[in-house]
C-alpha cells in the first residue's frame, strides 16, 4: 500500500484538489529544471531569481484575487486598467500634492477599494454579469488613467520605490550573504515544521487518520530544503540586492489569503456560492455580500499591484498594466481553478503563475522573442487546462496521470483511506498504484 500513493501525500492530503495541485507543482519543477539545463545554469542564479520575483510579483498578487473571483463564479477583466488607474492617481498625488509616500500607499488602497465597491455593486446588487461590468471597467479605468496622466509618464519619489524595487536591508556581521534573507528562510522552515507537527498532534487528539511519520518528515525535509536553497540564492546575490520587498509582500498575501480561503467562514462561503448559489442561499449564505466582497477585494489587490509596478518602473504611464488580466486569469486556470467556479486554491494559482513566470523568463534567457513567448504561453494554458479536463473525464484528477502508465480500471490519484469502509477498499488491487 505504500509506494506512489504515499509519496503523493507528501504534497497533499490525498484529496482531489491537492492531488491536482501536486501535478501542477511537478510541472513547475520540470519547467525550472529544463530551463536550468537549457540556459546552462542561468535560471537558478541569484540575479535571475531576484529578477523573476521583481517582474512577476504583481501578476501573482493579481492571481490571488482572480482565483477567488473565479471560484465565486465570476471573472475580472478590469484588473490591468484598475492597476494603471490607481497607479496614476498615486503618482499624481505624490508629484503634484506632495503626499508623503506612506499616505500615498493608503490612498492607493482606498482608490482600489472604491473602484471595487463600484464594480461589486453592479455585479452583486444589480446582477450584471461580472464579465460585462469589468469589460466596462477595463475601458473606463484605462481611459481614466490616460485622462489623468494626459498620456505622459508621472515619476514617483525615491522613498516610494521601496515597495517595487526595494530589498531586505543588510544587518549584522558580514557573512557574504544577506543575513535577513537567511533568517527569514530559517524561520520559514521552522514554521513549516511546526505546522506539520501541530497538525499531527491535533489529528492524534481527534483520533483521525494520519499519514505515516516518514511522509511528514519527507514533506518537511523536501519543502524545507527548497526554501533554504532559495534563501541562500536570494541572499547570495549582488551586494545591495536580496529578497525583494515586493516578494515579501507577495508571500505575506499568499499566507493570509490561503488562510482566508481555507479556514474562515467567508472563505467557505466563496466556495459555496461558486459551487451552487441556490443551495448556498438556502444554507443562510448571503451570496450578494460574498460577490461584493470578491469583486472589491480584487480591485484592492489590483490597486496594490499597480503601485508595486510604478514603484519598480519609477513612473506611472499610460500603458501600465496592459494585458495583466490575461496573465492573472491564465495563472488561475493553469493552477487548477474550475472554469465554472466552485473549485480552486490560492496556492494553485500562485504555482500556475510561477509556471508562466519561469516559462517567460526561461524563453527570454534562451533568446526567444516576445512573439514566441506569447505563442508558448498560449499553448501551455491550453494544454494545462486540456489535460485537467481530460483527466477529470477519465475519472482521474491530476496532471500526474500523464506521467504514469495507463491502467485499464480507470485509475485515480485519490488516496483511499485504509482504516474505514469495506474490507475491499483496503485491498491493494482496489487502488491504483503503479509499482
Amino acid at each position: 500500500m505504500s509506494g506512489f500513493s504515499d509519496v503523493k501525500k507528501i504534497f497533499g492530503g490525498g484529496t482531489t484538489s491537492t492531488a491536482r495541485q501536486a501535478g501542477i507543482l511537478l510541472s513547475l519543477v520540470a519547467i525550472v529544471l529544463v530551463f536550468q539545463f537549457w540556459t546552462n545554469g542561468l535560471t537558478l542564479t541569484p540575479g535571475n531569481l531576484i529578477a523573476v520575483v521583481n517582474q512577476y510579483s504583481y501578476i501573482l498578487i493579481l492571481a490571488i484575487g482572480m482565483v477567488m473571483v473565479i471560484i465565486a463564479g465570476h471573472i475580472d477583466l478590469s484588473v490591468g486598467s484598475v492597476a494603471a488607474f490607481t497607479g496614476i492617481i498615486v503618482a499624481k498625488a505624490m508629484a503634484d500634492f506632495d503626499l508623503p509616500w506612506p499616505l500615498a500607499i493608503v490612498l492607493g488602497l482606498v482608490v482600489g477599494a472604491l473602484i471595487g465597491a463600484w464594480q461589486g455593486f453592479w455585479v452583486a446588487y444589480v446582477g450584471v454579469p461580472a464579465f460585462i461590468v469589468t469589460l466596462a471597467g477595463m475601458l473606463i479605468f484605462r481611459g481614466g488613467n490616460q485622462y489623468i496622466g494626459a498620456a505622459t509618464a508621472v515619476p514617483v519619489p525615491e522613498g516610494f520605490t521601496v515597495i517595487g524595487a526595494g530589498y531586505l536591508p543588510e544587518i549584522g556581521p558580514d557573512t557574504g550573504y544577506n543575513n535577513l534573507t537567511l533568517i527569514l528562510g530559517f524561520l520559514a522552515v521552522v514554521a513549516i515544521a511546526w505546522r506539520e507537527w501541530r497538525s499531527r498532534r491535533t489529528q492524534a487528539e481527534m483520533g483521525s487518520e494520519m499519514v505515516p511519520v516518514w511522509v511528514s518528515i519527507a514533506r518537511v525535509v523536501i519543502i524545507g530544503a527548497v526554501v533554504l536553497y532559495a534563501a541562500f540564492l536570494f541572499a547570495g546575490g549582488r551586494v545591495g540586492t536580496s529578497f525583494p520587498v515586493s516578494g515579501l509582500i507577495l508571500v505575506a498575501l499568499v499566507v493570509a489569503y490561503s488562510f482566508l480561503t481555507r479556514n474562515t467562514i467567508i472563505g467557505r462561503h466563496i466556495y459555496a456560492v461558486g459551487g451552487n448559489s441556490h443551495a448556498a442561499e438556502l444554507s443562510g449564505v448571503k451570496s450578494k455580500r460574498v460577490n461584493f466582497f470578491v469583486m472589491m477585494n480584487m480591485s484592492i489587490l489590483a490597486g496594490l499591484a499597480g503601485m508595486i509596478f510604478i514603484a519598480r518602473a519609477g513612473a506611472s504611464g499610460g500603458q501600465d498594466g496592459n494585458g495583466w488580466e490575461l496573465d492573472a486569469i491564465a495563472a488561475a486556470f493553469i493552477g487548477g481553478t474550475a472554469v465554472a467556479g466552485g473549485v480552486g486554491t490560492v496556492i494553485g494559482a500562485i504555482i500556475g503563475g510561477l509556471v508562466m513566470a519561469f516559462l517567460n523568463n526561461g524563453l527570454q534567457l534562451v533568446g526567444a522573442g516576445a512573439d514566441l513567448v506569447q505563442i508558448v504561453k498560449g499553448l501551455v494554458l491550453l494544454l494545462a487546462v486540456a489535460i485537467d479536463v481530460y483527466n477529470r473525464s477519465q475519472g482521474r484528477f491530476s496532471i500526474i496521470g500523464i506521467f504514469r502508465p495507463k491502467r485499464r480500471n480507470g485509475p485515480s490519484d485519490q488516496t483511499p483511506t485504509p482504516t474505514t469502509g469495506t474490507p475491499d477498499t483496503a485491498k491493494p488491487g482496489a487502488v491504483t498504484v503503479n509499482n
Partner: protein
Amino acid sequence: MVDQPVILEMRSITKEFPGVKALSDVSIAVRAGEVHAICGENGAGKSTLMKVLSGVYPYGTYEGQIVYQTEEVRFRDIRSSEAAGIVIIHQELALIPELSITENIFLGNEPGRGGVINWKEAKKRAVQLLARVGLRDDPDTLIKDIGVGKQQLVEIAKALNKDVKLLILDEPTAALNENDSQHLLDLIVGLKGKGIASIIISHKLNEIEQIADSITIIRDGKTIETLDVRGGDVNEDRIIRGMVGRSLQSRFPDRTPHVGEVFFEVKNWTVQHPLVPERLVCKNESFTVRKGEIVGFAGLMGAGRTELAMSIFGRSYGTFVEGQVFKDGKEIQLRNVSEAIDQGLAYVSEDRKSLGLNLLDDIKRSVVSAKLGKISRGQVVDDFKEHAIADEYRKSLRIKTPTVDEGVSKLSGGNQQKVVLAKWMFTDPDLLILDEPTRGIDVGAKFEIYGIIQQLAAQGKGVIVISSELPELIGLSDRIYTIFEGQITNEFTSAEAEPEMLMKSMTSTSKKAEAA
C-alpha cells in the same frame, strides 16, 4: 416468462471506484419482453450497474461481460448502447427546460437532411410519439411548463424515438404523485406487450410487486438472488428480507408521542408567485406546531406545500404579501435565511441536488455548511472539529462512505439525502421542516429516517413533514394539514386520518364534516 429467451445477460460485473468497490461479481439476466426490477438499499450499486450497461462507464472501466441478444457487446459510450436499442432514463431527468417537447425528443437525433432540421416532420412524429405514451400536450410546449410526471413521459417518448428494445428506468416514479406514477407503470406494462423489455429501479416496493416479472436483489455490490414474481409468492416483505438480510417487523419505529404546548404559529400567510403577481401560491394560511409534535402536510404536487415552507424559511420563495410568524408566543421576523436559521428553523429541501447540496463539496464541509459559526472561533473554522462532527453523523446516520473527505457527488442518492439531513440536524433547530424527506430512499433507511424524525420530536422539537406518500404521512404524523391550491383545507388528528378523507381534502376545499 421463464420460457422467453434471455436477451440480456450481464456476467460477473465488477466496478471499482477509488476506494470503493461499487459492484463485485454481479450477474443479471433479463428475458425478452419482461419487466425486470432491481432492488437494493441505497448505495447497493443499482445505478452503477445500469451505467455500466448503458455505456456511461465504457468498456474497459469495468470487469465482466455483457451479452446482449446472444452477442458480447462492448459499449464505448451512451450513443453506442442506444444504437443497440438500450436506452437509459436516469435518476435525474436529462431534459432541457428551455426547449420544447419536440426539440427535446429529437435532441441529438434531429430529422432532416444536411444539418437542416425538418421541423414539420419532427412535429408530426412528436405527436405520434406523445400519443404512444398517452400525452396530448402541444409538442411546442416548453419542458419547464409541464409537470415532472409529464416530463418523465417525454423522456420515454424520446426513448421510443430511438427504437428502444430495452428500456432502463432509474427511480422513475420517485418524484411523481400517485396518479402520474400509476400512469407511468401502466405505460411500462403496455410497452412490454409491444415487446419492449424494461429494467426498473425503484424504492417503492409496492410498485415493483405490481409490475415486475422478476426481481434481482443487490446488496453491497453483490447479487443476492433473483426472484420470479409470477412463479412464486413474492411480496414486499420477501423483497425487503432480500435487500436488508432480515425482516422488518414494522415500517415505523414504535413511538409514544409527548406533545407539548404550541410554540410555533403562522397566521394569515399570503405569498405571491415570484413572476406572476396576480397568482397567490399561499392564500391566507394559518397553522400551528406544538413542541414534540410531528405535523404532516398533505397535498398534491403543485398544491403549494413547498412554496409555503420555503416562503416561511426566510422568504426563499415568492413575494411576501402578509402574514405573521410567532415563536414561543412572540412574533418573529424571518426576512432572510440566516435569520430563519438563527431563529431555530431548518428546511430540508425536496431537491437535494440543486437546492440541498453543493455537489463540488465534500461530506464534512457539507455537514457543517449551514452553521459554520458553531465550529468557528471568530471567523476561523476549526477543521478538526468539522471532521469529528461529520464523522459522528456518518456513524449515527450510517452514511455509506469510506471517509467524510469524500465528495458528496460520489454518494448514492439515499446517502446524499442523509448528508442533507445531517447538515440541518447540525444547526440544532427547534422547528425542522422536511420536504419529501424519503424521496428515493430505501426501506431500511426510511425506517432509520423515521426514527431520527421521532427522536428529534422526542427532544421537544417541532417537525413538519411534507410528503406525497400518504401512508408515510399517516404513519408518522400526530396531526395532518391538507393543502389544496395554496389553501389549508383541513386538519386531521392521527386518529382521524384516513387516506380517502385526506384525499378528498387534498382535491377540494370541502370541510371536514363533508369530507367525512
